[in-house]
């Protein structure tokens, strides 16, 4: 019964709200050969598209999780339903995470097919970067109740990484390009903390 209801939620969300985001994310990946060479890259060169470009799909997929109910009147209607809205958002977020991981996985496999030296580390590193960028967008969009604020926050964090570089320490997004993988666990931790902290913080900011 519950699983049937969840399946309906996922199907309905994908069909009505998220298909466009999946298409945009796919478009971003398919456009990458315009910018980058994907064949015969060593592990450092291969990290360039996987850290600078591919993680942008995290912003596209994870930031708009709260978008369908951004309008206050729609949100009020949704809140009156029996099914908890937070659970719906968590399901959406998980869907986005899975889709992002699958897309990045397929991209890494394609690079492998093109004789680039990519490993599971590249997959994890690229995914971690995508998840943190996405989680920043998701958190700001949720707390600010406006998806534009989410996009703004994640894009700005991305820009800061160009300007500040390694000064960002554990939260530097492009560490694999400099041969370091240690930062990735911090990115994953940061993404997890941000994603889970959103729901109570949303309530706090709403009540104020």
């Amino acid at each position, binding site marked *: 019964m519950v699983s049937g209801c969840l399946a309906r939620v996922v199907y309905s969300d994908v*069909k*009505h*709200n998220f*298909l*466009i985001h999946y298409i*945009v994310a796919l478009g971003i990946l398919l456009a990458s050969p*315009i*910018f*980058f*060479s994907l064949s*015969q*890259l*060593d592990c450092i*060169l*291969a990290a*360039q*598209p996987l850290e*600078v470009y591919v993680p942008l799909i995290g912003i*596209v997929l994870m930031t*708009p999780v709260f*978008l*369908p109910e*951004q*309008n206050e*009147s729609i949100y009020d209607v949704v809140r009156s339903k029996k099914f908890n809205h937070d659970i719906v958002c968590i399901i959406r977020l998980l869907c986005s995470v899975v889709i992002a991981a699958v897309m990045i996985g397929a991209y890494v496999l394609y690079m492998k097919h093109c*004789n*680039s*030296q990519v490993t599971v580390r590249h997959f994890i590193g690229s995914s971690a970067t995508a998840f943190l960028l996405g989680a920043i967008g998701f958190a700001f969009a949720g707390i*600010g109740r*406006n*998806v*534009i*604020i989410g*996009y*703004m*926050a994640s*894009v*700005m964090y991305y*820009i800061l990484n*160009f*300007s*500040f570089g390694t000064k960002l320490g554990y939260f530097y997004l492009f560490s694999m390009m400099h041969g370091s993988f240690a930062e990735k666990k911090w990115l994953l931790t940061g993404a997890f903390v941000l994603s889970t902290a959103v729901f109570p913080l949303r309530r706090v900011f709403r009540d104020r």
Partner: protein
Amino acid sequence: MMLFRKECGKIFCSLTYILYCLLVILMIISQYFIDSGQRLYPPSKGDYDYGEKIVEDHDLIMSTAADALTVEFLSNRYVCYPFGFYKAVHLDNEEQAKIEKYICEITGLDSTGIAEKKKSAEVCYITDGTHDYGEYAIRDMPISESMTYERFTDIMEDVDNILGGGSDYAVDGLVYQFSRVPMTYEDAVDDYNSIFNDDRVTNAYARLFGDYAGIVLAILPVFVAAALTAADRRRRMSELVYSRRSSSLRIVFTRFIALVTTMFIPVFVFMVIALIQILIRYNGSDIDMTAMFTLPTFWLLPNIMAATATGMLVTEILSAGAAILVQFVWWFMGLMAGGTAGLSGRIGKFTFICRHNALGNRNEFLMNWDNFVFNRVFYMVISIAAVLFTVGIYELKRGGSFNGIRLFGKGSIFRRKT
């Protein structure tokens, strides 16, 4: 004026504008003020490196470009940066034959002559990615006596096209790529003196200010513009605004001017702070009191206008998300192209993010002054045209004949009609 004040008030109270101000403050302080933190002192004699300068010597350009092209031709590995990112291009036999034909034309050698050069050159084996290749150290390719610089640039344009663009042989980059020479102590002193005599200090700092602030001002305004434009629809106020007597031209243009004005305020404040800092630091020098306002305004205003106009237009037609995506793609390509161009005064006719990341090198910047003026005016005109187009869209929406292209909800392009 009343409408303008109302729009400004709405913008000042919006969260996106507060975030915009915080981010502009963060970027300008962390980039410009840290980089320009100390007083400039004259170069000292006996330094190891004084940097490089561009001499614009056609013979030097042809000679070094012919060497570079031959080296890459012999390895069949051409390094390109089409959007600022590394791309190794390998050509097929037909394209290689074309390149060989061009090398023969430039150098006056034939295929045998090139083969002999290859034979006599030292080879060093380099690992590029997963691929090992031999690079031939060729430094003395001759230049045919009949070769003119005009014909040479035609050939280089063709070579760049064969390589798919973004190569070192792009015509507008030849001077920057192939006619750099190390600066002597005297050159470094001249460069230092020109900051005080020609730039009168503030012009040099104004260029650096424009360079750093231009990066963020080419993207951030789109968020504020998209949020304000989408706010009417989000708060279900669109119909109420549509029914007002004010013309669409007045509403949209007032909103545009309010956005540009409010977003320019933090930039202007930093111009004042930067000028005060220069006045304190260079007390007693001959300082141009207006340059810190005129040059950055001319440099940065088109960026704010273009990003704002894109935000308004695409939000009216599609959605705020689409506007952000469009502006991000434009910004990303502009930033990467600017990085490849070398961050120092190489400004094309359509360069969106102009870069000149140095206090000195005045001559390099002035070499492209015409391009700079053209492109700044071009982006201002384009922005106003985009706002006029937005007025048209807004008018159609008011008349009920167009409701934007909806991606979600009722009437969306992804919802199946029953």
